[in-house]
């Protein structure tokens, strides 16, 4: 989490959100990732999302594990609480934090090593529990900090800088999440901010587990010819299937939407996300349909992007557990103890 302090001066006419904060207020330290790293573009998108959604900085919890991706929470929203945990264990920490206090917005930033290798167990179980969080995977198919080993998301035939091409089946986080019943599943590309920003907005507002798998090329170890996670390869095989527009609460829908290929989804805060299906036959509410489509396009070498699946009816973890709304830390200690005299009754059972 290396960081360099950033000067805090901004132009007087810079735009402010409803809280009177500027986008500069949502920045973090200067990134120490490599110049051109896809992750920095994701960081920029997150800053814009949180600014646009008027989220109070201290009501955002930034969770991460270990790796290049997991360093990035230091680079956005300085005034938020961050928890840079141990490798692959961000989901469990987020589960515990969320259990104790549901009033914060939880954003987890992870990578393909953190989520699909060392942390694959926690990744799948957070989905099963439907933890209310936005889970971002900055997916580059490679281990950066240890200098270029393949990760579990590397495609068959993808070439490393040195050595032989990968021969093992990749783990695709999107189809994995689909099979486990995640309730909001999106894929995007760090180089496509226009698509990415509304997808992350929807993910933050969605009640339940939302996955945003972002192809985020590693310029140092996986951006060469023959790599399937390079900028060039991603641009060439990139395919928008369902794009999303974000419509704030009480905001009127001004754009024209084509009948049959558009689908509004109302979020819990009254805002809407409008799904724009580029492929009119695609049904993002059908798990089976989505799975079939994804496999077919994957076999054809395409990178399918957009909001690929949504289920806005399944209960999230808190509602499944039946917990009180009050953060546990705010419950008075007296209310957590059996009433006076009750101990005597309890002890009778042991005589």
């Amino acid at each position, binding site marked *: *989490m*290396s*960081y360099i302090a950033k000067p805090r001066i901004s132009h007087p006419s810079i735009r402010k959100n409803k809280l009177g904060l500027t986008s500069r207020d949502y920045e973090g330290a200067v990134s120490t990732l490599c110049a051109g790293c896809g992750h920095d573009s994701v960081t920029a998108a997150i800053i814009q999302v949180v600014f646009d959604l008027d989220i*109070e*900085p*201290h*009501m955002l*919890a930034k969770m991460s594990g270990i790796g290049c991706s997991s360093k990035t*929470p*230091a680079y956005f929203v*300085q*005034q*938020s*609480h*961050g*928890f*840079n*945990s*141990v490798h692959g*264990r961000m*989901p*469990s*920490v*987020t*589960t*515990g*934090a*969320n*259990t*104790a*206090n549901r*009033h*914060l917005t939880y954003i987890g930033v992870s990578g393909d090593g953190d989520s699909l290798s060392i942390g694959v*167990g*926690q990744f799948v*179980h957070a989905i099963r*529990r439907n933890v209310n969080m936005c889970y971002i995977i900055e997916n580059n198919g490679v281990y950066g900090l240890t200098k270029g080993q393949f990760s579990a998301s590397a495609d068959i035939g993808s070439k490393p800088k040195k050595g032989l091409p990968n021969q093992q089946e990749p783990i695709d986080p999107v189809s994995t999440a689909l099979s486990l019943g995640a309730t909001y599943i999106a894929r995007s590309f760090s180089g496509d901010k226009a698509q990415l920003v509304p997808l992350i907005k929807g993910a933050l507002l969605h009640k339940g587990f939302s996955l945003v798998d972002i192809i985020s090329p590693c310029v140092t170890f996986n951006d060469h010819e023959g790599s399937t996670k390079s900028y060039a390869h991603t641009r060439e095989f990139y395919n928008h299937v369902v794009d999303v527009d974000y419509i704030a609460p009480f905001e009127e829908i001004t754009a024209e939407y084509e009948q049959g290929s558009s689908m509004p989804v109302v979020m819990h805060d009254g805002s809407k996300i409008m799904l724009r299906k580029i492929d009119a036959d695609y049904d993002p509410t059908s798990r089976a349909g989505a799975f079939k489509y994804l496999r077919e396009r994957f076999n054809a070498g395409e990178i399918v992007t957009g909001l690929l699946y949504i289920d806005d009816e399944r209960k999230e973890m808190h509602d499944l*557990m*039946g*917990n*009180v*709304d009050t*953060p*546990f*830390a705010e*419950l008075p*200690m007296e*209310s*957590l*103890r*059996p009433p*006076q005299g*009750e*101990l005597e009754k*309890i*002890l009778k059972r*042991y*005589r």
Partner: protein
Amino acid sequence: MAGTNDIVIKIATVNGTGSASANGLLRKAIFRMGVPVVGKNYFPSNIQGLPTWYEIRVTKDGYQSRSDRVDIMVAMNVQTYIQDMAAVAPGGWLIYDSTWPRGRQLDRDDITVIGVPLSRLCNERFDGVRTRILMKNIAYVGVIAALTNIDLEVIKGLLEETFAEKQHLIAANMEAIHLGYDYAVENFSGPTPPRVEKMDATRRHIVIDGNTASALGCVYAGATVGAWYPITPSTSLMDGFRAFCAEYRIDPESGKRTYAIIQAEDELAAIGMVFGASWMGARAFTPTSGPGISLMSEFIGYGYYAEIPAVIFNVQRTGPSTGMPTRTQQSDILSCAYASHGDTKHVLLFPADPHECFTMAPQAFDLADRLQTPVMVLSDLDIGMNDWMVPEFEWDESYVHDRGKVLSAEDIEGMEAFYRYLDVDGDGIPYRTLPGTHPKGSYFTRGSGHTKYGAYTENATDYQEVIDRLDVKWETARQLVPEPEIAYSKFNNAAILTVGSGNGACKEALDRLGEQNVGLNYCRVKAFPFSEAVREFIDKHEVVYVVEQNRDAQLRALLILDFDLRPDKLVSLLHYNGIPMNAGFVVDKVLEEISKGRAA
């Protein structure tokens, strides 16, 4: 030798045949007669079919540990019959089911063997396979009641309480009691065992297991999040917490829960959830056993360095590796004290019995909050799963939980700037904020190198400053942990020092050694880091027998490391076969050491 109210009854059965309720009935009846009693369960890592034993020690002196003899054996398991017969002390009694013939060679002439056709009696009277098996267990309780003079009215009273809602079962169970009782009275004419006679020595006492006591302690401590992965022998701790919470943790207005129990996918996740919840200010805990600690170790080091409270109950079992999951040991002392890579050390509490399991639970949460660090409570299978007679628990309604140095929104508002790891008070404990409290209170929690301001660092001086401050905090912990239990018998230069469940056997051994004019002083440590009182105690003696239940003398090693002691002064007496230690072991070992020439 057995005597009035000094009798050991051991019941050998087959796992999964429902003998637990019959054994519990017998143990409770003796307790209700005002006679102190101990219940120990020796069970296999199995659901059905393997041998299991329950041992009831009737002890007028109120000793807590296992006895070293068996006076009455109820041999209900054909598989272990030979071994069970061999275990009976000379002059003792053996009861067996005489429904089926038994080889003549299976006999001893120095004990009294009593055959009762338990199966036949129950098969004649009851229908249904399961009922017959259950009633056969109740019937042997009747036999023992007849032989030892246990009050049938007390047994009836217990059945009435147990089956208050199923009246027909009271009559059926009483009938089974009488099948055994009457048969014994009518047919048995040999020498009778010593009697159980009414006393008044159990007033203001209860019989409870340590895991249930810890669970109740967690409820009183205000724990709200329990995350766990099921593991023997800790499972009943969460079962207990769940049961108490169902009763006492439902918000009357909303009907919702003021607690959360999360069954994690493994221990790595369980401890991650605990740290996440504690970071948010909830009191969170996880119950586990040795293998769980191994898996949690990386995270425990994180909690130490990032300074997040957590309470971990380690109900120790026999290691190494899977070891013997249903046997007891104290073999995780070192792995808990130094869990995780790097320079780490952790606060440990050592309850000696269920009473301390109850009192140490709120203490553990208070210490974890005060010190902002993981605190581990190390009980063991013997404490956690066996039935101990202990003084009634008390709760002081004026008790104020120590939530430690947590800043409120008002506190933060008034500050110029908040820095997470500054030692403002000089006790090595910084102030913390909870997420969502105030924008100025935000900080970045990390396991990577950080400065006292909470910023990332790779700077040698800044890194070391924080690591050194953690050592200041360690010395503060030494002041805050519970003091040892110390007892001086005479002006002796030798002493016994023990930990946790070693307490019962050692105290009984002190009595027995005293009868042989071997006087020893006594110290039982209750926590790590060891308080100065422990060092002073050791300093006063020439020889200290360190009694513990592991092979590698882990407590002794920890004492030497923590206090930089002269090793030859600490003599190890080690018991580590998985069965709880008894007083006989301690007496024999001490006498052996004395005869070797070490002065006592």
